């Protein structure tokens, strides 16, 4: 709940892509081909580099690894007042409770459907927008549009939800007024299970598309301009150039981002969904994170929510490894 805040301020796109390059750059030279002696000699030589790393390593040990023993409360009936040492150990009970809950499948389904819709409808949007922006020839116009479309990223989701209500309510919302004029009927967008997912995806598209273009624009800026000139000389039109030069140059980024998104399919934004849920759409709206909140956090069930979180992380790792394997099969470099 809070941990994610720390790194949740920039789009998954940027951060995830960079993570991937990290994994993929592991150098074969580093494999244990050299003798221990030479290794130690080199370590001595690079003493200053190790000294430089001390603050960083201390940071990770103290603030990241030290708190990780907290994950063990997934196997406890953790009572804050008793602390970690005195709380009762319950083995897998929290996991059993979760899997045996009648809501488990509903939540699983809702979470996956929403994530898949997100991948199908939201994911291509920044790519399309970036491609369109890339075709703009007036630099000033391009920069102006860029600046504008980044803004929503900085607006609180509470404000976004409240604006959605204002615009879509049947009681005089701008969209429904328009609908009534055009079709003579109003649609209860906010209270129908059918419209819940489109609304959520729409909000995400509105809020994050612009900011999500950054990484693609960055990749596009790196494309060698000579390629275009050569293609133009060969008589390729703009559309052909797009297909044969522009797209392939960002294909790897797209694949990497897609893989990493797969690792996150169980993680839908909590606040957004929580704010948009109501009695009429709950059967499609309840997802892992909102479930953990209502069952766990509001009632102080730390162990239970930690167990669900742990389950989610493990599934996430499996999914990333799986999609990575598939990507490799199809000839992309993958992550590892």
């Amino acid at each position, binding site marked *: *709940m*809070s*941990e994610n*805040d*720390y*790194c949740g*301020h*920039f789009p998954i796109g*940027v951060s*995830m*892509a*960079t*993570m991937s*390059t990290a994994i993929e*750059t*592991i*150098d074969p030279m*580093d494999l244990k081909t050299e003798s221990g002696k030479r*290794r130690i000699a080199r370590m001595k030589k*690079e003493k200053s*580099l190790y000294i*430089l*790393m001390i*603050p*960083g390593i201390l*940071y*990770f040990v103290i*603030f*990241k690894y*030290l*708190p*990780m023993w*907290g994950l063990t409360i997934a196997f406890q009936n953790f009572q804050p007042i008793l602390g*970690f040492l005195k709380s009762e150990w319950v083995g897998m009970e929290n996991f059993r409770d979760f899997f045996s809950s009648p809501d488990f499948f509903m939540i699983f389904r809702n979470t996956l459907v929403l994530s898949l819709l997100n991948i199908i409808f939201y994911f291509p949007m920044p790519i399309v927008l970036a491609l*369109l922006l890339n075709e*703009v020839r007036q630099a000033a116009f391009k*920069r102006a*549009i860029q*600046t*504008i*479309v*980044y*803004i*929503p990223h*900085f*607006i609180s989701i509470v*404000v976004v939800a409240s604006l959605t209500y*204002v615009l879509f309510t049947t009681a005089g919302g701008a969209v429904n007024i328009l609908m009534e004029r055009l079709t003579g009927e109003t649609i209860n967008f906010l209270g129908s299970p059918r419209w819940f997912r489109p609304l959520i995806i729409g909000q995400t598209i509105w809020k994050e598309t612009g900011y999500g273009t*950054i*990484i693609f624009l*960055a*990749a596009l*800026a790196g494309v060698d301009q000579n390629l*275009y000139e050569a293609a*133009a000389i060969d008589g390729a039109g*703009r559309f052909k150039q797009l297909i044969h030069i522009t797209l392939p140059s960002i294909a*790897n980024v797209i694949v990497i981002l897609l893989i990493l998104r797969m690792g996150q399919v169980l993680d839908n934004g909590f606040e957004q969904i929580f704010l948009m849920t109501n009695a009429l759409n709950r059967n499609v709206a309840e997802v892992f994170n909102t479930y953990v909140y209502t069952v766990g956090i509001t009632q102080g069930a*730390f162990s239970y929510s930690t167990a669900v*979180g742990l389950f989610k992380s493990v599934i996430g*790792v499996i999914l990333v490894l799986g999609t990575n394997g598939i990507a490799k099969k199809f000839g992309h470099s993958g992550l590892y």
Partner: protein
Amino acid sequence: MIRDTSMGSRIFDTLNILFLSAFALLTVLPFLYIIAGSFASEKQLATEAFFVIPKEVSLDSYRYILSSNTIPRSALVSIGVTLFGTFVNLFFTVTMAYPLSKKRLPGRNGIINMVIFTMIFSGGLIPTFLVVKGMGLLDRYASLILPIAISPFNLIVVKSFFQEMPEELEESAIIDGCSRYGVLWRIVLPLSMPVLAAVGLFYAVGHWNSFFSALIYLSSPKKWPLQVILRQMVMLAQFTAANMDSFDSDFVRPPEQSIKMAVIVLSVVPILFVYPFIQRHFTKGVMIGAIKG
């Protein structure tokens, strides 16, 4: 580049510009509503669903915000934490990223894996709190900075950027008798301004928008940053009636709609001001850091 001046190409350009303008307009409309709302009368806000032009322009909400020193003070806190925090972030990130960019450094892969592992698993709220408390950081600004001194993502962005630098530059400097520290300071960093700008902005936006650490770690209200106050004002109205304890509302009524909007505007404006200045570096920095080749 050779210009394609065919008919189809020009039609495409026109449509493209139209489409992008429409998209930008759609993006900006709700924001205009918030800005207009911050200048509008309460009556208009209460009776009109959506508007982008206030009927009568009033500065009351801004005057109200500045009438007590809470918001100016918390804004100062936010600015201070953001500036200092970003500096600390960059220091920790650079010092760790530079050694990790040396592919042949023994132990490097182990450390990178250790960093990546923390992206997937974290200990959670209470253990982290206990560590912060154990370090004696409670109710100090350091608690807003040290526990998030390095973002693994940003670390790797910077590392990848360093990795792309030509080795020869550094090597010749070392031959000239420069130490590793000297190389980092005099050669690597000056060449890394784009990535530092980009990562610095990520960190700065993170600090500027963060509220949860402040709520948990700081108990003196005087130390609260702007986002805590903003959130309190916005959420208060969100929760009225539902969790409402109208007993409270007799004394502290939820702030007027226009005031909430004014606070939102104030909290976003600094980012928008800084952004265009960094934007150019920014793209370049992320590009080299994130995507190689």
